[in-house]
């Protein structure tokens, strides 16, 4: 078993703790926060996981007991922590939008960065949408891709809210870097409705001249099935929709777009299922419950 630690005891870290407890490969040995009254740390102790509010200093004091760190703090904190993990020989899986390590989306490029000391999981919206953009760009040119993520207000914690630009910029960047679009843009909307909405993601891909509608549709369906194999709540709200018009995108004029309407029901854990696969920034991580 790989010995893991979670840094950050907020929404995402706590939810990840529940997911790791279901993994046959990953063993959670420590949970670290900075708030002595943290609900996440209390829950960790309750489940027999060593927990400390001593922050990263505490963790680095026992670096030889840990193989992998999951960073569930915020982008700027990870930028401070990352060099210290590396110096201590700890591999980092970054669940913040810090963009230090290569961005990884399992069905697209999981095998490419197996040796990287630090991998970035982009954002939850990125994990939900980049596979679709990739599915389209592997069968035709995508001059421009755009995604809209709508998240239940309750599942967006203070870290996300105070750094909302990082969500849109990191996700938009990944649509290009990993998804294969020529230009990308991401939008996030918070919806406070009660009961909370299921996380929704809409992908728009501008389609280059000469695309084959059937090839695009079947590539998308294949990819949805692949993602659903590790995120069972991931599904299409309807078949891919093709709209023909003259769209003046930042990547040039395209004759059509495909609209992919996705819904994600979380596997449950600390955050309710409605919050999407463990809420907001974990990128469908952990055991894929």
């Amino acid at each position, binding site marked *: 078993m790989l010995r893991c630690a979670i840094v950050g005891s907020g929404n995402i870290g706590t939810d990840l703790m529940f997911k790791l407890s279901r993994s046959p490969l990953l063993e959670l040995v420590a949970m670290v926060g900075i708030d002595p009254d943290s609900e996440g740390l209390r829950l960790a102790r309750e489940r027999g996981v060593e927990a400390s509010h001593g922050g990263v200093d505490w963790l680095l004091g026992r670096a030889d007991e840990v193989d992998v760190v999951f960073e569930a703090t915020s982008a700027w904190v990870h930028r401070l922590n990352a060099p210290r993990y590396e110096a201590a020989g700890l591999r980092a899986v970054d669940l913040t939008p810090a963009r230090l390590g290569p961005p990884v989306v399992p069905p697209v490029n999981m095998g490419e960065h197996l040796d990287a000391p630090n991998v970035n999981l982009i954002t939850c919206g990125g994990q939900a949408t980049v596979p679709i953009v990739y599915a389209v760009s592997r069968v035709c040119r995508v001059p*421009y891709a*755009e995604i809209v993520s709508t998240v239940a207000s309750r599942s967006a914690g203070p870290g996300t809210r105070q750094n909302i630009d990082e969500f849109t910029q990191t996700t938009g960047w990944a649509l290009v870097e990993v998804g294969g679009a020529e230009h990308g843009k991401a*939008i996030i909307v*918070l*919806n406070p409705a009660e009961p909370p909405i299921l996380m*929704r993601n809409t992908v728009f891909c501008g389609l280059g001249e000469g695309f084959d509608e059937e090839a695009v549709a079947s590539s998308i369906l294949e990819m949805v099935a692949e993602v659903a194999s590790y995120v069972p709540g991931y599904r299409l709200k*309807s078949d891919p929709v093709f*709209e023909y018009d003259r*769209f003046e995108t930042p990547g040039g004029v395209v004759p059509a777009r495909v609209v992919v*309407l996705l819904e994600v029901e979380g596997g449950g854990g600390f955050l309710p299922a409605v919050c999407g696969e463990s809420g907001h920034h974990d990128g469908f991580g952990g055991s894929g419950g």
Partner: protein
Amino acid sequence: MTARFRLTDSTLRDGSHAVAHRFTEEQVRSVVAALDRAGVPVIEVSHGDGLGGSSFNYGFSGTDEMKLLRVAVETARRAKIAVLLLPGIGVREDLRKAAEIGASVARIATHCTEADISQQHIGLAKELGMEAVGFLMMAHMIEPEDLLAQAKLMESYGADCVYVVDSAGAMTIEDARRRVGLLKEKLGCQVGLHAHNNLSLAVANSLAALEEGVDQLDGCTTGLGAGAGNCPTEILVAVCERSGIPTGVDPLAVMDAAEEVVRPIRPDQGVIDRDGLLLGYAGVYGSFLLHAKRAAERYGVDAKDILLELGRRKVVGGQEDMIIDVAVELARRQRQGS
């Protein structure tokens, strides 16, 4: 006589919805010149969904908004130029660019329950030396006390003014009065009202807000804006003059601006048709209107049914993608004959 309130004309921002975000540099030049001449103190210029709004989801800008902004700044002699930014759509970089060009008022908009996503952007606006205005959209959806709590957040981030924004044009006179009244009573900063005309109450609600001591009001010339339109600037000014409320704006000059400069852009502006009325009645975000009409045509369904379903789903501003979702769903049901 000094004006009793400060007027912001949003023809070149909210009105952008009504022209599918295709304002030209010539239109911006002529509108800004006419409003500036009439004495309108603040003129807002941005994509309808704020800086960075140009997209598949909201419609691509016909002309880069920074180009339009530059024309506005160059044209205005007295008026300040404002921009709108919705965190989640636009980013701080957009605000920096706008400030560099010369925009001096930053209006930062969030859904009425999500004020805390505006902290960085309001902070940056102040850092850049801009006036910062918090803009609480869809404010009809929550009780005045809850709205106050969100307004206090924006004030604590440094907002010089917080607006009650009736994005759905769904507020009755009493709704507007209670919200503005409570914010005026409890906030130290200024309070504004942004009214839409879906229920034909935009001017009336603005007058009620004035009775509560509102500091800032928004209008759009001829009402050009999302949904059935905004509070028509020239009518607001005329009514205020008739009511003995000084506006600082020349009523006849602003009427000329409306008739000769803005009216030709959308001659049919001002009609409250069934779909426009439904927005106010069902409490649906005003800028969904044209998107819903377009989707209705594309999928062979009724725009009315789309708007009602959006109201039932409690979608908020920014969720234009749900219009396609609903239209596709309605078309499928129609095919199945259910």
